């Protein structure tokens, strides 16, 4: 039944509805696939074989009784390790949470369970979602299925790689500055960052509260819409959750799949193209814009002058929020506790504060330490106005730029990431080079608007995947699905099949 892992979630759902297969068969096929390829890929930190199969049996029972819990009942899923899963180890890619078993489910996870999606396991990530390559995981990097020597993007590299390597039909990621969209671009998969507040953050271990948003990681735009409708919508347990119904996303994706873009106004953001973007990435982007024009779209160039300051703004606001959030890892109530060692401790017993310092030194990796220290600096008296205060003002200007641009265009487009996947190890100790990966994705987080990354082809110079990003105004998530689906249809027609068909076969995999 290895053919089951090649199908999309929507195709699998149709097969389940037609009685051609069972959730147990589908789930087992993906568990087998994980067994076969996850050694070299390392997308998963935990695999929950028993739990997944039990949920699959429940799904088959509901199906047999004629009462499936949702359109995706019985479709297995992988979940980024930053979401709390009751009874299943959740580490956020950090030593400080090694072995932590949450006593509750995140709302997203609760909704997945209620909708009947068996959870295959938890996916690898940069520690506390800080990074763009998944190399900052305390448990070793994830490898890009297109080239195992390269990064799968980050921070959600595990979820993107799992989907790209056919280890899971769909996955959940989280996006604070591009952690869903950039891994999507460099692995040839689809990733959606919903409108801020569109998906509950309850049980999502916070990196930066005002920026974090969970969303779908899939191989097709339709699958993303199906998953988004399962996890999205108001949650009273998240005070920043939007108390309004989601727009019709699946319908928008189905409409977009016709490939018709007549009358749609598409804005190319001047500041998010050209300099700093790899030639092959830019070429695939220009091609995608041409394809949309031929499909009837009106293309205009828009300028968002403040976007050139978005990266600096983000790297002040994010560390400030992160340093405050991560203060809860104090070695007292959960997680790692390390007693300081050395001759000085034979004289006196360590205090709680001494234990806290030793624990946080041992438990956090370099990138987390860098950002905590940077955030502490930005928030300290004397620097607060110059750094954090100023960044908050520039954030307002970024939103004003978006508002002006959306008066001229229904959606905005840009390359998702400035480059294709780079080699593992290449940028791990050069924080600034790493931060530049999020150049194009960060403005959406600062302003809270939704965005999708859709595969745009392979860069000529290295044969690696590139992505196009489509952004829409807040609460207009349906537009990213409509335009994303249209672009997907147009490009897949041009290629004669999905981009992932051209990914190399992984070792040990029978055809």
């Amino acid at each position, binding site marked *: 039944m290895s053919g089951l892992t090649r199908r999309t979630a929507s195709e699998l759902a149709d097969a389940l509805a037609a009685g051609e297969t069972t959730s147990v068969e589908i789930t087992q096929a993906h568990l087998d696939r994980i067994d076969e390829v996850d050694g070299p890929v390392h997308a998963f930190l935990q695999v929950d074989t028993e739990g997944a199969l039990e949920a699959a049996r429940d799904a088959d029972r509901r199906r047999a009784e004629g009462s499936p819990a949702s359109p995706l009942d019985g479709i297995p899923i992988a979940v980024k390790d930053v979401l709390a899963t009751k009874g299943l180890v959740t580490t956020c890619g950090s030593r400080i949470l090694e072995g932590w078993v949450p006593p509750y489910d995140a709302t997203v996870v609760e909704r997945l369970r209620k909708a009947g999606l068996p959870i295959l396991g938890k996916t690898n990530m940069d520690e506390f979602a800080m990074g763009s390559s998944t190399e900052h995981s305390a448990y070793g990097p994830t490898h890009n299925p297109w080239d195992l020597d390269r990064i799968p993007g980050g921070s959600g590299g595990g979820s993107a790689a799992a989907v790209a390597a056919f280890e899971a039909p769909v996955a959940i990621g989280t996006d604070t500055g591009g952690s869903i969209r950039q891994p999507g671009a460099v692995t040839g998969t689809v990733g959606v960052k919903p409108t801020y507040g569109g998906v509950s953050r309850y049980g999502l271990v916070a990196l930066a509260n005002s920026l974090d948003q969970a969303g779908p990681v899939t191989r097709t735009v339709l699958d993303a819409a199906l998953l988004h409708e399962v996890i999205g919508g108001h949650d009273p347990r998240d005070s920043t959750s939007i108390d309004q119904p989601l727009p019709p996303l699946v319908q928008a994706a189905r409409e977009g799949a016709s490939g018709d873009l007549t009358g749609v106004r598409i804005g190319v953001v001047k500041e998010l193209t050209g300099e700093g973007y790899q030639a092959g990435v830019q070429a695939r982007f220009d091609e995608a814009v041409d394809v949309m024009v031929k499909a009837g779209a009106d293309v205009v160039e828009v300028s968002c002058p403040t976007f050139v300051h978005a990266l600096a703004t983000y790297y002040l606001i994010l560390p400030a929020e992160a340093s405050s959030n991560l*203060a809860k890892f104090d070695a007292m109530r*959960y997680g790692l506790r390390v007693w300081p060692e050395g001759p000085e401790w034979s004289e006196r017993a360590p*205090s709680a504060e001494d234990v806290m310092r030793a624990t946080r030194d041992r438990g956090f990796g370099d990138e987390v330490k860098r950002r905590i220290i940077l955030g502490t600096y930005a928030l300290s008296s004397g620097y607060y106005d110059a750094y954090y205060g*100023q960044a908050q*003002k520039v954030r307002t200007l970024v939103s004003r730029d978006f508002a002006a641009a959306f008066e001229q265009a229904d959606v905005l487009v840009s390359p998702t990431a400035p480059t294709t996947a780079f080699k593992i190890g290449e940028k791990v100790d050069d924080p600034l080079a790493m931060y530049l990966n999020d150049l194009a994705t960060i403005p959406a987080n600062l302003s809270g608007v939704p965005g999708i990354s859709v595969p745009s082809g392979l860069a000529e110079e290295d044969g690696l995947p590139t992505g196009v990003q489509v952004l829409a105004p807040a609460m207009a998530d349906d537009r990213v699905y409509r335009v994303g689906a249209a672009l997907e249809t147009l490009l897949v027609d041009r290629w004669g099949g999905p981009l992932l068909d051209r990914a190399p076969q992984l070792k040990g995999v029978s055809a």
Partner: protein
Amino acid sequence: MPDISREEVRHLADLARIDLSDAELDHLAPQLAVILDSVASIADVVDAQDVPPTSHALPLVNVFRDDVVRPGLTAEEALSGAPEVDQQRFSVPRILGEEA
């Protein structure tokens, strides 16, 4: 914009309750100086002077729920991840000075 010294990094790490070894300070301090230098450009955005700050993407204020009892974690669940438990409580290292 001020440069950041090794001593400042040591002080900030102390404020953030992280023990940094000398080797870690040697490694992290120059990297932090480079990052700070790159974000310093934000001061040049003069248009921002009279702009109201944004702390949050949504214009939400004071989201309340009804003040009614709702189910929460049991004591056992709340303590399930604790490094050390004593008599149904979190057990922690001493919190006062030794002379106390």
